[in-house]
């Protein structure tokens, strides 16, 4: 016949201790979540600051459309004739590779 010993509960937690443990665990979880959201927030903040820098450069430009860039027009006149010309296709256009077929 099997014998069973009476063993007292190994971990005894009082109400106060339980509240303490939950509190500490909660604080740790909250810190983690805070750091993660903070990271994303900061990241967006510097993306926005850099983006503002770029828009500032656009705003202060005298010429703001590509087709009005005289230097580009001159380049086409002297060299590549016009967009999509034979020479432009050769130098400024490309083809893509289906990499799933490359072994």
């Amino acid at each position: 016949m099997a014998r069973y010993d009476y063993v007292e509960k190994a971990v005894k937690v009082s109400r106060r201790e339980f509240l303490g443990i939950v509190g500490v665990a909660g604080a740790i979880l909250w810190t983690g979540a805070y750091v993660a959201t903070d990271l994303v927030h900061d990241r967006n903040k510097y993306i926005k600051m850099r983006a503002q820098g770029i828009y500032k450069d656009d705003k202060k430009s005298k010429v703001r459309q590509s087709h009005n860039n005289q230097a580009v027009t001159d380049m086409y006149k002297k060299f590549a004739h016009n967009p999509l010309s034979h020479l432009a296709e050769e130098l400024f256009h490309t083809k893509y590779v289906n990499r799933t077929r490359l072994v």
Partner: protein
Amino acid sequence: MKGFQSQELTRIIDIDRKLCKGCDSCKAFCPSEAIEGKYGAVHRVDNEKCIFCGQCLVNCPFGVPQDTVDAVDQVISKLRDKQATVVGTIAPAVRVAIGEEFGMEPGSLVTEKLYGALKQAGFKVLDTNFTADQTIMEEGMELIGKIRHFALGEQAEHVGPLPQFTSCCPAWIRYAELYCPELLPHMSSAKSPMMMAGPLTKTYGAAEVWKVKPEDIFMVGIMPCTAKKFEASRPEFNSAARYWQTQGRSGDYPDIDVVLTTRDLAELFRRLNVDFETVAEFSDKDNPLAQYSGAGTIFGNTGGVMEAALRTAYFVITGTELDVLEFTPVRGLQGVKEASVTMKDAKTGKEVTLKVAVAHGIKQNVKPLLDEVKAGTSPYHFIEVMNCPGGCVNGGGQPINPMGTSWLDKAKAVLPWS
């Protein structure tokens, strides 16, 4: 290795085994699920899947992933070589970020200082913004040709299908080539601004502007991007050499010799003792290849290529300039942005509504758009895709931790002894 052409770089981003904490943060930013390793274990990059965007590198809280392609010493030796003409092409997003490496506020616009520093280091400049304007001419005309054919009923041969995708982002190109090759006919055939800068320098620049031999030019792409290093190594990009062969000149050289990231360029300035904060400003007014429009510079932001293309497409189709140049619907950090512009064709008098979409962050925002195009139900004519959230300003080659995105650096900053 699978999925690479000959000569291409097969490894750019590498995770240091000794430093990786296995925290899985990088996986949350990886657009192509190229990072292997369970939570808690050391991670590694699978180069056959990696598109080299470097988002893991700029977002790792411990700064573990490293850019393994370092060309700084090679560029310095070329700068000292009297025979060589070193031409740098500066991407738009570099001028608002390089200041951060020297203690300036993020977003400080330092174009003149950057030109000055490059001049002091010995570079000639072809601004990538110039070729960005040129990209709009090439890519925009391609798009307008398609619109005239499909929407306005004009006869044309050899036009690709709509919608057209932008082709400026090398990580997006590699992503499409690896994971959705059926969409490649939709890709604009125009090269990226950097890859246009290469052949332009070695043909027009060599003959007309600097008057040097094309083979003596050493072309350096200065980019906010690690995937550009891969793009420059693609074997088909030697069109300048092929052009000169038809003109009776021999020699074989790539269009872009090496690529430096924004971080690499800062390192180069430090090694050459160029003091970025006090360097004399320089505007390079007499150099035609350093002239750019506002449309060229906004390529660095998400929605920028689209906005620049709309400004020109509107003019080409209607014959009149836009009253308000800012397209606010395509600006900002919303995942997928869309806009439509109604234009009256000056030639036929017909009205056409151009529908466009802008997506950034392949990881989160792009897949639904791609599925629509695959199913043939996409309502758009032109779709801009940038791999990095926010566009090139947040590229994988940009300065890390400008405001303490690294948790460790953030903690260090508040410690009294640091």
